[in-house]
């Protein structure tokens, strides 16, 4: 099954063998009988669906309603990884965000051939801009805006640093926008494709931005890291970009890497090579226009 599959066919496949979704270096087999999941997968992953008889998948996920009373009373959705249930169920309307969050967890548990940094990554002219940041730092908003204005989206959540080459492997997935960022992106980029808003999640209101066709098509093209920018959102602050020393950048990277301790010495080497090959900055981010201008200036050819 490839692009253009209608929603009925997709629902049927999701409800039986499961749909196979290729997300950068990972293959996910997803089964679900939930209409909201079929709709969201059809919207966001339409160009990433692979043949349902793909023999090997990295993650076998099922999203369904748990049985019992909950079928009728405040219905819920549960995330099953290979039929085990590692998380609390969430209200039924949060099924798709639950899939995205659960998948983050799966990747962070298994992707140890990469140094995995909690970070958004975009690329321009083969050079990657890494935006590590905790929730609330504004990385997803910046990532969405950059990916809609000339940069290629590599990832919203993970910088996958290849241990041997130091390059960044793309992980094209919907960008998770929260609260005010949803309206900002919708107003600024009328062409942006956003899924439905989910209210009252632990992160507030969430909506996902569909990655561009180009970002999905070029999922196999890694990029050389060039800049590391640590964003820090401060309402009303004057936007500025200040250099960060390599040592400081390495410490911060290690702190925001999911598997720095699992990788041991190799993690240190990969992180050290990364800061060696990049210019590092701290971005104080108050206004989207001003910050985009600063970030774009990084990639302008120097005169």
């Amino acid at each position: 099954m490839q692009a253009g599959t209608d929603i009925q066919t997709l629902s049927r496949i999701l409800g039986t063998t499961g749909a196979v979704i290729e997300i950068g270096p990972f293959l996910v087999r997803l089964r679900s009988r939930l209409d909201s999941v079929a709709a969201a997968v059809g919207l966001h992953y339409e160009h990433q669906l692979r043949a349902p008889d793909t023999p090997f998948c990295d993650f076998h996920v099922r999203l369904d309603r748990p049985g019992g009373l909950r079928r009728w009373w405040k219905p819920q959705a549960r995330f099953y990884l290979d039929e085990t249930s590692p998380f609390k169920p969430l209200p039924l309307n949060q099924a798709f965000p639950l899939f995205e969050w659960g998948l983050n967890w799966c990747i962070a548990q298994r992707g140890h051939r990469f140094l995995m940094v909690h970070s958004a990554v975009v690329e321009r002219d083969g050079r990657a801009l890494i935006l590590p940041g905790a929730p609330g730092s504004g990385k997803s908003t910046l990532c969405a805006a950059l990916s809609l204005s000339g940069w290629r989206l590599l990832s919203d959540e993970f910088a996958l640093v290849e241990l041997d080459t130091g390059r960044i492997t793309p992980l094209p997935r919907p960008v998770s926008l929260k609260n005010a960022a949803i309206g900002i992106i919708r107003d600024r980029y009328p062409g942006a494709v956003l899924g439905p808003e989910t209210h009252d999640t632990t992160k507030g209101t969430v909506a996902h931005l569909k990655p561009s066709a180009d970002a999905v098509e070029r999922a196999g093209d890694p990029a050389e890291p060039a800049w590391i920018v640590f964003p820090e959102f401060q309402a009303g602050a004057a936007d500025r970009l200040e250099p960060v020393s390599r040592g400081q950048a390495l410490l911060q990277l290690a702190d925001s890497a999911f598997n720095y301790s699992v990788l041991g010495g190799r993690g240190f080497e990969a992180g050290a090579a990364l800061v060696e090959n990049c210019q590092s900055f701290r971005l104080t981010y108050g206004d989207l226009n001003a910050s985009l201008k600063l970030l774009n200036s990084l990639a302008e050819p120097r005169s």
Partner: protein
Amino acid sequence: MTPGTRLLLTALTRPETVAERSLEELDLLVRVARMASLEARLCHLLRDHGVLDTLPDGPRRHLEAAAMVSDRQQDMARWEVAQIHRALYPRGIPVVVLKGAAYVLAGLPCARGRLFTDVDILVPRGALHDTERALFANGWVNQTQDAYDQSYYRRWMHELPPLTHVMRKSTLDVHHTILPPTARLKPDAGRLLADAVPISGVDDLYVLAPVDMVLHSATHLFHDGELEHGLRDLTDLDDLLRHFGQDPDFWPALVARARQMDLIRPLYYGLRYTQAFLSTPIPGTVVEELSDAGPTTPLRPLMDILFHRGLAPHHWCCDDALSGVARWLLYVRSHYLRMPLHLLIPHLVRKAIRKRLQEDSKRTAPVLPRP
């Protein structure tokens, strides 16, 4: 035996056959091995047999990722033991390291790819109070808030309530013997301590003597434990037997020790099921000597039915129609062996009610692991 279980057992006993598996079979093998906590071990085994590098990228990367996690856990376990030793040595408390961490410290073959979540130690019962205080002074705190759990451990169990280190969040189980004092079998902890083997180069740090290590492994699996990691524990036992069994004096010493320690039944089961699942080489004379140690006819086939299911990986593809019932009966059995009924029934009722109340509060929402 279901095809899923057979797939994993064949991979463990004849690793070279994995090279001929189709990608569909490898998909299932990796998942079953993961559920059984044997993924990292399988990785080492396949590497030793030159099979790992012939595997397609997909399954190979999962096995390698698991091996990396296990390597790191072993570094951490060594560090934990060093810290425990540093806390207890000045108080003159000898420490015997048990289970996974002991295999790592003793450099035994079953340490390779062994995944574990906590460190287990054994100290003399008389030193228990001092041990707890010294560990507390060094950051290990008892996080069991519930008053009932506290008194349950302290009155009836062979270990303190689990301790957690305040900074590292690592878990430590402090035992004073290997079975609850209320259990039906009564091994003598004093003998375990007396015969413990020093870890070279470190004062007052020990592992159990080979025969006791085997008996502890078998006892934990067949007289005490819950079987969630049953097959993983059975492969430990298989490895220990293959390793120590090369010494011909080991086998008679093992049987004699089992009789002396009142652990002949767990040994019987241990040998029976390692042989059935993993083709462990066991001398015929030993099998013969233990022929009277097992259960008699009505019980023996029943236990086979139960253990063949209880020891299989707890993955849906390894289950058959009886698996659920078998696991439940083994769970009941493990408690029955732990305590006399007049203690057990009130305990289980309390646990069942609380489990209902807490069902989902133990799980967390899917947040990314804190980097």
